[in-house]
């Protein structure tokens, strides 16, 4: 009896060993995202997990953060991945400067690093002597698509306001610059530009007050859809249906607003696929493919009612 037990235990142990060995055959990809409290990254993570299951030839370790500015935990995650000896790190940096040094360490440890979603700072890369490609959407170009749609609708002299994302955030900045480029190109009249910190309720209040100060507003460019929803609600309570709104992100909640005309357009940057596509690119390099270079642009698309 005792012998049997020992044999069984040994067999279990062997099976476990075999199990880990098998898992070790597959390349391991560490995915580092920003705040999982953000719908965009939540969808992205779901997309990456589905992708892991579908491909089945790699192992995914995914980490997110508490909030958008918690870049210390991103740095810790990189260090943990180096210790664990992963084959590739795919990262959406929370801070485009702070992440350069830890990622350099990872590259020196022979890990394939792919930077996606937010580009690392060019200056910081130069300083640290890091060559790293960027895989991601053109936030500025995307915002310009939405801004242009608004510009075409209003024509020269159209009076517009911008609702910005978090001050200092790279994508907020890029989207604002994209909107401003549309303002310049279509000779729109930019009356005001304010942050609502990506949030619906704040956008609702801030925009109501902007509308009071400038009752002649004709168009609104919101840096994300959550804020666009707040703007649309403010227009409804003010009884105004003559003001055109564009957003960004194409979250499900704006679908009905676009189809019934309360919003003119939004921009889809296919966040669900973005991490998955970056993982594909990383695995190519792990398998001996050429290094990535420059800016690998991911698709963006203007979403309108038709």
């Amino acid at each position: 009896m005792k012998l049997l037990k020992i044999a069984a235990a040994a067999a279990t142990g062997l099976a476990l060993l075999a199990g880990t060995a098998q898992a070790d055959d597959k390349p391991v990809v560490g995915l580092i995202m920003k705040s999982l409290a953000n719908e965009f990254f939540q969808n992205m993570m779901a997309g990456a997990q589905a992708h892991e299951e579908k491909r089945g030839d790699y192992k995914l370790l995914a980490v997110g953060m508490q909030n958008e500015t918690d870049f210390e935990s991103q740095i810790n995650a990189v260090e943990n991945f180096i210790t664990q000896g992963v084959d590739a790190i795919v990262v959406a940096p929370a801070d485009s400067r702070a992440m350069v040094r830890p990622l350099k360490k990872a590259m020196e440890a022979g890990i394939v690093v792919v930077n996606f979603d937010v580009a690392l700072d060019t200056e910081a890369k130069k300083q640290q002597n890091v060559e790293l490609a960027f895989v991601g959407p053109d936030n500025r170009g995307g915002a310009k698509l939405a801004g242009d749609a608004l510009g075409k609708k209003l024509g020269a002299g159209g009076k517009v306001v911008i609702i910005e994302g978090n001050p200092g955030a790279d994508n907020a900045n890029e989207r604002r610059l994209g909107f401003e480029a549309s303002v310049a190109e279509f000779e729109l009249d930019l009356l005001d530009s304010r942050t609502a910190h990506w949030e619906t309720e704040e956008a609702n209040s801030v925009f109501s007050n902007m509308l009071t100060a400038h009752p002649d507003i004709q168009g609104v460019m919101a840096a994300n859809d959550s804020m666009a929803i707040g703007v649309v609600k403010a227009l409804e309570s003010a009884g105004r249906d003559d003001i055109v709104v564009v957003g960004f992100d194409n979250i499900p909640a704006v679908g009905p607003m676009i189809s019934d005309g309360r919003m003119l357009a939004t921009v889809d940057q296919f966040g669900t696929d973005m991490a998955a596509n970056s993982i594909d690119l990383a695995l190519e390099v792990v398998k001996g493919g050429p290094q990535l270079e420059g800016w690998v642009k991911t698709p963006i698309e203007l979403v309108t009612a038709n």
Partner: protein
Amino acid sequence: MTTQTLSETMPKPTRFSVRNVLQNAGIGLALLALILFFSVFTEHFLTPNNITNILTQITINLVLAVGMTFVILIGGIDLSVGSVMAFAAVVAGKAITLPGFGPAEAIALAIVAATLTGVACGMINGVISAYWALPSFIITLGMLNIARGAALQVSDAQTIYSFPYAFEEFGSAMIYGVPVVFLVALFLVLVAWFVLNFTVFGRLLYGIGNNEEAVRLAGHSVYWYKVAAFTICGFTAGIAAIVYMARLNISSPIAGIGFELNAIAAVIIGGTSLSGGRGSVIGTLLGAFIIGVLANGLILIGLSDFMRQMITGVVIIVAVVLDYYRAKYTSK
């Protein structure tokens, strides 16, 4: 003996006292000065539409601040109200979008769900901090994280939308230009004012804030009164969630970040002492107005976001310093 101690720690109902009149008069004057300033320097401030806007915009903060007043009066603090509001909104959002209910049932279900969620979170805050006599600062900081995590978990971090039309109607309904949601908040203020001034329960909350030991020695169960104060605060967070949903017609799991600080600011600007035992919910009403009028007026004036944030900070500090002198001169 003990009853004597107790009556000493429980101030007379504030409604007739010189101290209270002075307190609220000071805040009222500050509010009037702000209103005057913005009326002179902007052309749209004193228009019916803008006044409606201000009333709508202060509603959520006012609702949260009413509950917060109860907690601060007993010398506590509740940092979790913003997160609890989001959690309640998400639970109610899930309830209201359940298939198979008519609009009326769905709305009723949502209101019950939001209220119960808020009450449950508040009660947990109260039970834990009162039973082990722990600082509510830390317990509610824990709850801030629990409720936010729960909101994200339940909603899968997605915005919940497409509520019944009648709910939206309620959120944007007006009576003579006054938003119905603001009237709900005002009703809460009146109920709170009555409870705090005219019931034994209310007077004992002031007593606990002044001298907890005396209330205990008088034979009252301090524990249950504390739990009740935190539960009321959770309840108002649930009500705030309903207002949020009706006004914006969505439930967002990232709603209400930092709302606790605005609610605390309204209470403190309103003259309620952070160490408890002194203050009034009428002050809180005025405090919420000051914050709302500032946020609105500074945008109308065209001040940048960053300057606006700085000025709001200055006002909070000035209010507390003024309160120091007010307390010094009125207690003589």
